[in-house]
């Protein structure tokens, strides 16, 4: 049986045929999902996190958030309104696979009442922030979260 000819690259890596040497698995890029029904806020978040080494996706509402989270695992989900958590659903437990601590949920809203904050934290939300927020502080928080995860 003829052996398939392998092509040797200058760096020592081998492409095609033969046994390849064990290479370190490519590092998975951290993924962030931004959820808001307001395009402006979505863009504001997206642009302020743009220089971090992450892949950013956006969703326009709770249904799209569910679809995105079912399609792939995100490291962080930033939800810019409290409605998905206050309409009887339990998105955190629904979207976080059992035994995993991902995705981490950040909620940023205009609501400041103690009752809302406590309800959201009881729902499993990891961080609760209110508008107006500091973009630099949010970016630093997200960067620290991602560094901790990776």
């Amino acid at each position, binding site marked *: 049986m003829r052996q398939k000819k392998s092509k040797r690259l200058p760096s020592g890596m081998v492409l095609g045929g033969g046994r390849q040497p064990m290479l370190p698995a490519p590092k998975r890029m951290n993924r962030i999902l931004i959820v808001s029904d307001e*395009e*402006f*806020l979505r*863009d*504001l978040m997206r*642009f*302020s996190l*743009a*220089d971090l080494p992450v892949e950013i996706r956006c969703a326009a509402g709770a249904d799209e958030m569910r679809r995105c989270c079912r399609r792939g695992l995100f490291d962080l989900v930033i939800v810019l309104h409290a409605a998905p958590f206050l309409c009887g659903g339990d998105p955190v437990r629904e979207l976080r696979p059992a035994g995993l601590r991902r995705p981490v949920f950040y909620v940023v809203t205009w609501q400041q009442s103690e009752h809302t904050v406590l309800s959201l934290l009881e729902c499993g939300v990891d961080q609760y922030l209110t*508008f*107006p*927020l*500091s*973009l*630099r*502080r949010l*970016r630093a928080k997200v960067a620290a979260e991602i560094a901790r995860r990776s």
Partner: protein
Amino acid sequence: MTATLPMLWIATLIAGSLLLAGGLAAERLRQRRRGRDAVLRAKYLHILTVALLSERRTPPRFPLLDRPGARAILVETLVETIRATYGPDDELVRRIVAEYGLDRWLLQRIRRSGGYRRARYLAQLAHLPVAPEIAFRVAGHISSRNRYVRFYALLARITADPAEALHAIASYPTPFTATETAEILSVLRRGMLPIAYVPLLESPVENLRRLGVAIVRQFGIEEAEMQLLRIVDTDPSPELAFEALDTLRAMQLPLCRREIAGRIARLDPSLRKTLLRRMAAGGYAPHVLQRLFGAHERPYYEALVQSYKCTLACR
């Protein structure tokens, strides 16, 4: 006659088709313009976010500003960003406003427009950092017949010249609504106004007292209990007395006092019911409610207390 009728039909058909085609073309142009505006808005927001997050001091360059509607998009982007964030470089935003003449542009728009459109431009001006002399340019609109124009002219005046804020609020002719008070508080939270609540609560002007109560509630200042009790007991405005009562309730302070019971007895039935509902939700004990409200309201609050307790216990 037989030849004229088909010709009339054909003429009508052609006119109808032309009208339909014109309408479709106009709609398509509008859609194209909306699409271009959305792209431009995203581009401006990107430029602005990058400039605010970097350490630069010079205003960035915003392309296509000569295009019709581009300046309005830039103003909207700036205002929305300022509303949603704190800590952006105020000096940089001030320089952007001055460099591109956005304050002059808004003043021109305010002068030329009327009604709600004018109120909208005034609201935008109120959120931009502008020079104090702008306060005098908008002061004339505070006497407008339109309530929204009046209020946003006041807001623009107090944000342009915060040193004169209390004087401007004191001379405002209409009592603030809850929404207007919240708008002023949002300005206050951005550090544009002073937060000395005692002179506000003791002021003879109703709007200043109203603002003082809102500040106490927003920041949960329990030291203001005595001033709030005085408003509950003696204030001539029942709405303000209710606000003070509700603030005491929101801060979970004891409500078994003679002056509170007296005011609750004098309150409008709808306000009494609102207060009762909020107290039951806030977890006040039935004996407190029993002391403050009449026997005929007992079944209502007992049902409320039961239902709220059930909600808490069964979760």
